[in-house]
């Protein structure tokens, strides 16, 4: 089936199998290997991208469902310079192995779109769809609050 997808500002026209997962399309055909896959059941969130401006788990979307959509991956987030979340993750040591990081940053970007000044609890709840095994989340929460310009991080 023919699809046309805008990925990180570039239009891709392709003919794909209906069952092709969006995440595989992004990785294998659109060259966006910055978005990883971490599970089979939409739990881990590593594959999170923005689709038409909101976060989605790209392993749970078919490429054919993204026909006509605008996708932003971690590789499209920076605009000449690092996105504030990328800077904040770096400053706050909010990543160790980095595997969850693309999805975590995109999910955080969506969180801040929806709620520009979250509390710590709102950040934690807002990131419940993204699993990290390295950091224990504390620095991730700090980074998101920093990027939001919020104060009052506990601990």
């Amino acid at each position: 089936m023919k699809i046309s997808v805008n990925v990180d500002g570039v239009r891709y026209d392709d003919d794909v199998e209906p069952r092709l997962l969006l995440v595989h399309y992004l990785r294998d055909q659109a060259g966006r290997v910055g978005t990883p896959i971490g599970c089979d059941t939409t739990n881990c969130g590593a594959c999170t991208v923005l689709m038409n401006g909101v976060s989605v788990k790209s392993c749970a979307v078919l490429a054919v469902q993204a026909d006509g959509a605008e996708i932003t991956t971690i590789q499209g987030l920076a605009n000449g310079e690092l996105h504030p979340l990328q800077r904040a993750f770096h400053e706050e040591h909010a990543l160790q192995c980095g595997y969850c990081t693309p999805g975590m940053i995109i999910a955080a970007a969506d969180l801040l779109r929806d709620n520009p000044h979250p509390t710590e609890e709102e950040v934690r709840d807002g990131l419940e769809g993204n699993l990290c095994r390295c950091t224990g989340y504390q620095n991730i929460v700090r980074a998101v609050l920093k990027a939001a310009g919020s104060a009052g991080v506990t601990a």
Partner: protein
Amino acid sequence: MIPAKFDYVRPDSLDEAVRALASGGDDTKVIAGGQSLMPLLRMRLAYPEKLVDIGGLGELRGVRDLGSALEIGALTTHYEVTRDWLIREHCGLLAQAAATIADPAVRHRGTIGGGLAHADPAGDLPAVITALDATLVVAGPSGTREIKPADFFSDYLTTSLEPGEIVTAVRVPKHDGWGYRYEKFNVTAQAWALVGVAAVARRSDGHVAEARVALTNMGSVPIRALAVEAAAAGAEASAAGLAAAAAHADDGTSPPSDLRAAADYRRHLARVLTGRALATAAGVP
């Protein structure tokens, strides 16, 4: 993991969708947001021959004010449900409950129609629309019909939808003046509800005038806790008064014993959570 092959159509109209479904037979399935279906496809627990993608049917999205009820299009996403002003104002239970489904990214794609048609008793929406005494509006080859929740959910992952039928909307009576609470109990935030209790209650003069309570994951379908409702009617709007009503929560239920929880614990949880949900719905501080 990778889904098995399937054919795929994306109809432009509801009629086309109904025809595609009806002509496809047993191995044709609807996909909307895909948040319930995609994991099943990836794990090859489901392997339909054809998917009918109704995601393009714009007429099935959105919320309409019908006066005494709201009509919520089947393709309205959980995220949209949590944000919709009409829903929050007139049947807040639905907005509150939708906010507990999965996580933000899943809520951006998952739809109310899909969540209901999937009919997973561990899903949150079936019990919620049962407690709200909503009506499912369904379109099929023989036209449109309306189905009440008790007639819609027939078994585990099974509804009374006939071949070719699609849920097009959920009609929810306005519950102005009713308190509400969806009490969802899970081990981790991502996990499915071990047990969930959807409660709405109308107060009058320090007592509960009327309550409706429905249970998630206490059987193969959502369960109206009729014994609780009967006991709550006229009960004092206090923690103690409502705990007594809540003691009936597991009457007539057959909760599963599975990896997640044993039946006796589910029964106990149902009673405890019903008390809490009722108390909140009845405005007990």
